[in-house]
């Protein structure tokens, strides 16, 4: 890896995001709209306070997975990926460049979505708000990392699009949002122990219910961070310089 090339790539990706006003609007507004909708659907019930924080972690994850998959898909179809791989850019430089760029976007996204949930939708959380933001950012970066991994596995555009539901939906079903993970059938509960989104939801739930959540949140964040690095490294290893 070469830090200069990684940062150069991150800055190029940021330029592209910044030039696309609609994507910026989507990244910032969609999570807010979803939170608002959720608060409205569950008004006058305690449900919003229970699942709201968890979704604050899940939405950025899903949105970033999709945006990253599309961005790398375009990199492939435009021929720029082939050109980059013929040049001195390392595969890891490309992966981490994307992760850094989307990570920076995720910080803004998490700040906006969390502020909206708390100040507009009156979301009640027992723990400190900044922990909520940190978890949301890490979840977004996780979405980016898995999006990159998925598109590195894909050999065609068609496959890359198919990976979206395949990577996201099972995690969503098992992450504890629909049924608490300890009440899942044993096999599924064990599987959910290996999926990163489970830890995102665990961490968010801890902040929602505990005044001092760091003891529970810390290990969860560690596991998510390990997944992020593993996905990026695996993505870099899977990406082929030489193709058929």
């Amino acid at each position, binding site marked *: 890896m070469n830090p200069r090339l990684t940062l150069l790539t991150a800055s*190029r990706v940021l330029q592209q995001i910044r*030039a696309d006003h609609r994507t910026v609007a989507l990244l910032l507004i969609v999570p807010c709209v979803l939170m608002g909708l959720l608060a409205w659907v569950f008004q006058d019930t305690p449900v919003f306070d229970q699942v709201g924080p968890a979704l604050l972690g899940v939405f950025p994850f899903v949105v970033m997975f999709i945006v990253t998959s599309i961005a790398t898909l375009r990199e492939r179809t*435009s021929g720029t990926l082939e*050109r980059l791989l*013929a040049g001195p850019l390392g595969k890891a430089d490309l992966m981490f460049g994307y992760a850094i760029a989307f990570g920076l976007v995720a910080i803004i996204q998490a700040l906006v979505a969390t502020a909206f949930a708390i100040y507009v939708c009156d979301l009640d959380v027992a723990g400190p708000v900044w922990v909520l933001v940190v978890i949301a950012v890490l979840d977004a970066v996780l979405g980016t990392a898995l999006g990159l991994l998925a598109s590195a596995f894909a050999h065609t555009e068609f496959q890359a699009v198919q990976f979206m539901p395949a990577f996201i939906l099972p995690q969503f079903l098992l992450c504890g949002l629909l049924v608490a993970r300890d009440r899942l059938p044993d096999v599924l509960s064990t599987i959910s122990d290996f999926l990163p989104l489970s830890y995102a939801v665990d961490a968010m739930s801890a902040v929602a219910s505990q005044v001092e959540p760091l003891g529970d949140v810390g290990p969860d964040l560690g596991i998510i961070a390990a997944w992020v690095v593993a996905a990026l490294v695996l993505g870099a290893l899977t990406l082929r*310089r*030489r*193709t*058929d």
Partner: protein
Amino acid sequence: MMNTAAIVIDDLLVRRGGVVVIPGLRVCVPAGQVVGLLGPSGSGKSTLMRAVVGVQKIAGGTVTVLGQVAGSPALRSRVGYVTQSPSVYADLTVRANVAYFAGLVGQGSDAVDKALAEVDLSAVADRKVERLSGGQRSRVSLAAALAGDPELLVLDEPTVGLDPVLRRDLWNLFHRLAGAGRSLLVSSHVMDEATRCDRLLLMRDGSLLSDSTPDELLARTGALDAEAAFLHLIDTAADTAKEVV
């Protein structure tokens, strides 16, 4: 150092989608020249170029570029590659594109300005690529490679769809680069570009029909232009095949 070969290819075998598209090819591309790779569409020009820059999986043989195995890390900033369809970011400006690709090989804004001037795009440098014509886009793609000042330029049909004046200017630019010691491998499916090359490789169905200077080719085949020479070579090859059977 005396190094007269930019590219040496030996027994190259390439399969794409399970089909043999280059069935064992041998060629030596000299350094410091503009070498044309001419052949009809589907003859394997792009595949051969992909093998030279090291992004094509090969099933056999060796490809040596500037003395090293094609695609090896040390070569990646010494070889510039322009793909057949323009590979640049449509949502970035012309300058941002060229600056990014130049930056990857350690070149700064002087090299960017120079490359933009060379392909006659200085006037639209701050325009987004998506708002350019096809010919302009392919020149952005070319500028992105030129700005890196590579020792070997592999250009896949860089002059297709350009107006005659620009085409002439670009060929002149290629010769100036060769004069400055750079090596160029330039493909085209337009036979009349043959006369603009120092040396010509004629390709058909993944094999080389001829490897000579344009003058030698015309003298050997008795043809008046490259197109006629190409046909002559195909006919003789067919006759020889019949005799062997």
